[in-house]
């Protein structure tokens, strides 16, 4: 399932989720998600990064999650909604954010993104 689309998204795609694997349920929260399922489009490998900051941090969980995404070399984050600080952190790291979590599984969300990498926000 390789995908090289005109916007040049060769980078890894992360989906905030309740657990690992493509069958996991997506989590609409970014900062407090249990973790992130990361798909590498070059070889379709699937990895999981646990979100350590979700429980341990009072404030700044979103920022910590953004740091984790940067460390994991993620290019696009697919999540339900991102708070303003997390959004600023992701932008500073050059990571694209798409606020969508349409789908029962992480796999559904990734497929939805690849079909339409630049969705318009729902009215």
């Amino acid at each position, binding site marked *: 399932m390789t995908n090289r689309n005109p916007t040049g998204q060769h980078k890894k795609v992360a989906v905030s989720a309740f657990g690992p694997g493509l069958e996991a349920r997506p989590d*609409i*929260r*970014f900062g*407090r998600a249990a973790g992130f399922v990361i798909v590498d489009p070059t070889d379709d490998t699937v990895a999981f990064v646990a979100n350590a900051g979700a429980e341990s941090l*009072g*404030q700044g969980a979103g920022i910590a999650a953004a740091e984790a995404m940067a460390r994991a070399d993620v290019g696009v984050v697919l999540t339900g*909604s991102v*708070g303003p600080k997390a959004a600023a952190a992701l932008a500073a790291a050059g990571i694209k954010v798409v606020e969508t979590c349409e789908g029962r599984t992480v796999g559904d969300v990734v497929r939805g993104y690849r079909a339409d990498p630049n969705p318009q926000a729902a009215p």
Partner: protein
Amino acid sequence: MVHEITIISGKGGTGKTSVTAAFARLAGTSVICDLDVDASDLPLLLSPQIDETMEFRAGKVAVLDKEACPECGVCLRYCRFGAIMDGEDGIILDTTRCEGCGVCAYFCRPGAISMADRLSGHWFRSRTQAGPMLHAALLPGEENSGKLIALLRREAAALAERDGFKLILSDGPPGIGCPVISSISGTGYVVIVTEPTASGVHDLKQAADLCDHFRRPVGIILNKADLDRDHAAKVEALCRERGYPVLASIPFEPAVMQALVRGRTLLDVSEAGVAAAITDAWNTLLPYAERARRTDVP
């Protein structure tokens, strides 16, 4: 879809907790949260049975190993919070002033200072007649950063989703700082309980500004409504200006004080239409709250 309603007051002592307890009864069954973790009073009215007690650890606190300390005083120079002092017996660490920043530990060459997890309080999973309850108690002097409140709200959301509850009802903290911000961000609907007094009006404006800043829909309950006509008019004017519905105006009724002393709720006070007013408020607010969307819990 789970709806969340948070009751705050700006000023303390306006009757926020009594109102929450009354709403909990009227709702039949819901997930109830006491987010006033500094002075948790809702349990006094709802008599929860505690099923589980959990430790709450927030931030860090510096710990000094006196044996390893050469008393060089480097840490003293770095601490900006006055937590480190030079006493007769050498270096002393005042943990009540320690901010947990870790700078002293970072610069301590002999490694005499380490950072430990700070026990800040406890939280509880409990049962009441009106539904499951999540509440907490901060230890004295601890930072009320909102982290514990965020934790309670996450637990409430998880519980509601897991067990199929449609409503989360929260008794919020007083003030307008971090704890209140943590209580209202992302909530579906805010009820501000206020009173027609100089202090009440002043603090209502602050609380209203906060809710508007976070774009939360607001409804007002005016308690002790007939105490002062001028200030009642000010409250009503503010509500008109900002488009807040006045859900109820409850008269200043001595029987309320009596009920409180006996540990009863407003629904037990039939005098001066108090019970009726609270019931009307609930029926008025429910459709607003159900229309409002609950967004991402922080």
